[in-house]
């Protein structure tokens, strides 16, 4: 069923020349795909990770050539497990790559903060895509700060070409020094496409080999201390590589006044600003390839040549603060008198950097006027404001939407008012709920957190009904530990697991609840209900959210159950993601019979559009009746069940 979709995907990837062995060929590649290609060129053997924008495409791309390239690729249950698997593989001398988005490292930080001590034998590279802005995440945390905490070398490419080449270099550093290496990207680079020149694919493979050594792999207190010291020595040695490698760029220009130090994609913003302002021959530039450890020698050389230096980086003032320290320590040697950046207030200390920010900072530092944009902003605004907002919305027929509708109905039917319940949300497509017509969900923090939060809300607000909602992928990722806690520490909360049989938000990657893994191989699905039963939880109901009344009744039953005892009740609302089922229906040639609104019966109450709000529903303001767009309708029947005047019917029922 999914195989057709995969075939199409493979074809699409071939266009990216992912596994083509033609060194020297120039091809259009997205940053994430270039990372995948670089890993193949480096002879990677084991790839693990967990999906998350903006890093997902690398994991997907590698999974599609896994068989052909002889690479093991898996979607792990979460980022911590992913790092653990890759660590053991790399300790056993294999080359391993872990892929995740920035917040994934929070989950993986426990193991990453120990594996740094024992190190690896085969290369171990962790590819992390940060989301500056943030544009698609809950925060814009800066991985470069973790690299300092963990003492892991951190490389920052500026272009897709560098991303491809640097990942090979990262494997070299990792194997030379037996240390895991972080390759850090940001969303704009991960999703940017440009010309990439292919390199040779390394077909030699490391031989698996585990040499027991408790002084290295048994990281206990007394071992950790000496390993910590050893780690610092490694980092000091790696500084030599940070000083000298083909990815650093040093340009000394002009009157020896003004210089910019930068890293990653910001280098492109810097070059473009200088070009547009005509300052390319006046401002010196240093682009760093390692953001940890910093090449002190190279930085000093730069600081000896400029008087003022602006640090352009995303997103925390990491380089800025360390470069300030370097110039302070060497104040006799350097010419620089001031270091500016996000900390000094010359650049904003949140969000993405753009050319205007850089030009403004340069203007301020050099006391000159620099102009970058046309002075007709107001007119632009007048056109812009005509565009109606296009918020994220639930897809037509989304089972999550139906669940939330039934949930609100159940709570209201039990006599609760809006401010008398708490719905602790989680991370996934269901996060759209508060911005949709159903307007449900009061909190959203990080993956798996809904259940622990619900336990805490119950503790604080004893008589308030508390519901946790969590998706299937998130349940396996980090929800299980919360449920165990709710049961053992006896919390009367309702847990709704929205089981749409996929990881929808990040583009439909498989999770342990399905039978086909990301590389197309088969596995035995793990049923969420079985897991819950195993914990001794007695209230477990599985319901199809497309059945509105039944779903509502079960939620009411669960609310009553938890109000009478201190024990969680679990409801699994199970229905495949509407996009996936639509895709399958189209492939297998099944016809979808849309519903329609019988205008004679529609009383114009707007319950369907204002309290449910499926994407396929509309409101005709001329005749004051609802209508259904037959092209978007999935035929799920939910709206027909909620219509009080039975005006929504299926096409065939009408005759």
């Amino acid at each position, binding site marked *: 069923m999914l195989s057709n979709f995969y075939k199409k995907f493979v074809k699409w990837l071939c266009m990216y020349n992912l596994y083509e062995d033609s060194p020297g060929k120039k091809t259009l590649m997205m940053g994430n795909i270039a990372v995948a290609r670089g890993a193949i060129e480096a002879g990677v053997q084991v790839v693990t990770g967990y999906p998350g924008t903006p890093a997902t495409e690398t994991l997907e791309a590698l999974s599609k050539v896994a068989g052909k390239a002889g690479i093991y690729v898996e979607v792990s249950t979460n980022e911590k497990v992913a790092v653990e698997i890759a660590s053991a593989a790399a300790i056993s001398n294999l080359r391993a790559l872990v892929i995740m988005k920035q917040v994934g490292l929070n989950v993986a930080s426990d193991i990453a903060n120990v594996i740094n001590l024992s190190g690896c034998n085969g290369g171990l590279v962790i590819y992390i895509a940060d989301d500056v802005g943030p544009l698609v995440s809950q925060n814009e945390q800066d991985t470069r700060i973790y690299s300092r905490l963990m003492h892991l070398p951190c490389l920052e490419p500026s272009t897709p070409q560098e991303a491809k080449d640097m990942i090979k270099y990262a494997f070299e550093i990792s194997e030379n020094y037996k240390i895991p290496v972080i390759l850090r990207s940001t969303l704009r680079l991960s999703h940017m496409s440009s010309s990439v020149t292919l390199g040779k694919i390394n077909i030699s493979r490391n031989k698996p080999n585990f040499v027991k050594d408790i002084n290295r792999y048994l990281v206990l207190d007394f071992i950790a201390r000496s390993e910590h010291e050893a780690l610092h020595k490694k980092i000091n040695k790696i500084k030599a590589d940070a000083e000298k490698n083909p990815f650093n760029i040093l340009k000394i220009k002009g009157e020896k006044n003004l210089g910019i130090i930068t890293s990653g994609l910001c280098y*492109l913003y810097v070059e473009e600003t200088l070009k547009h302002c005509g300052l390319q021959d006046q401002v010196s530039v240093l682009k760093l390839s390692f953001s940890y450890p910093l090449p002190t020698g190279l930085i000093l050389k730069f600081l000896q040549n400029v008087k003022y230096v602006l640090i352009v980086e995303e997103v925390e003032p990491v380089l800025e603060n360390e470069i300030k320290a370097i110039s302070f320590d060497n104040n006799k040697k350097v010419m620089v008198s001031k270091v500016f950046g996000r900390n000094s207030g010359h650049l904003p200390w949140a969000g993405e950097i753009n050319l205007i920010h850089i030009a403004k900072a340069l203007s301020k530092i050099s006391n000159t006027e620099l102009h970058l944009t046309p002075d007709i902003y107001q007119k632009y605004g007048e*056109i812009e404001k005509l565009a109606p907002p296009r918020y994220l919305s639930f897809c037509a027929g989304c089972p999550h939407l139906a669940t939330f509708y039934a949930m609100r109905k159940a709570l209201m039917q039990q006599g609760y008012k809006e401010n008398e319940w708490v719905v602790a949300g989680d991370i996934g497509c269901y996060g759209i709920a508060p911005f949709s017509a159903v307007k449900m969900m009061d909190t959203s923090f990080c993956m798996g957190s809904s259940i622990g939060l619900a336990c805490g809300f119950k503790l604080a607000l004893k008589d308030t009904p508390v519901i946790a909602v969590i998706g299937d992928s998130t349940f396996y990722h980090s929800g299980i530990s919360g449920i165990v806690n709710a049961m053992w520490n006896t919390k009367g909360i309702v847990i709704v697991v929205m089981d749409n049989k996929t990881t929808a938000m990040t583009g439909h990657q498989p999770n342990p609840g399905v039978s086909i893994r990301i590389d197309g191989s088969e596995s035995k699905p793990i049923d969420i209900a079985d897991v819950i039963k195993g914990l001794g939880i007695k209230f477990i109901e599985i319901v199809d959210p497309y059945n509105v009344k039944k779903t509502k009744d079960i939620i009411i039953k669960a609310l009553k159950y938890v109000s009478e005892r201190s024990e969680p009740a679990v409801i699994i609302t199970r229905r495949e993601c509407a996009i996936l089922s639509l895709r399958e229906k189209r492939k297998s040639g099944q016809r979808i019979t849309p519903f329609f609104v019988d205008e004679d019966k529609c009383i114009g109450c707007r319950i369907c559009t204002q309290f449910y709000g499926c994407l396929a529903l509309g409101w005709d303001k001329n005749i004051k009746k609802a209508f259904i767009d037959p092209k978007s309708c999935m035929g799920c029947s939910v709206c027909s069940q909620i219509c009080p005047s039975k005006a929504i019917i299926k096409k065939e029922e009408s005759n």
Partner: protein
Amino acid sequence: MKTTEFNIAIAGVGGQGVTLLARILGNAAIKEGLSVRIGEVYGASQRGGSVVSHIRFGENAFSPIIPNGRADVLLGLEVSEAARRIRALKPNGLVILNVYKIDPVEVKTGLSEYPSISRLVNAFKLITDQIITVNATDIATDLGDVRLSNIVLLGVLAGLSVLPISIKTLRQSIWGNVPLAMRNLNMKAFKIGFNLRNP
């Protein structure tokens, strides 16, 4: 052909084929030895969200994002989406609009208003006189597949002879980047678009 900087912003709704156009233009540029940078803002594209691609040619285009007011062309696959991305356009830059609207949910459910298409089209005159409107969706529907509207618009753009890429390379790139079974139809759509301004 040579250029030091040429920028195209393509705006539309997820599913309209914004990213395919970017790929066609990007591959064509590489074939001609032109430096290219493409930046895409998506994520919600699968779900009918707002999508924009920035395609940048020439060695002075460094970053994947077109700085405000530097796009030579704004190609709108949907009218309000073009309005949303107007900030990219140069004063008096070229706007090519598909006279077609896709209502967001809030509009469908009556909670928000979609201005009339003529009002939207007229608003672009505040910034530029170079506005070209095309009924690309109608043409594509007549050809048998609404998804071809993006290629019709690409044809219109190519017909105006402003691109730093030869028509031949562009045609080859379409051929190489669309599904095999759709090649001939796509070439037809391109030709119709091309001839609209180049009879």
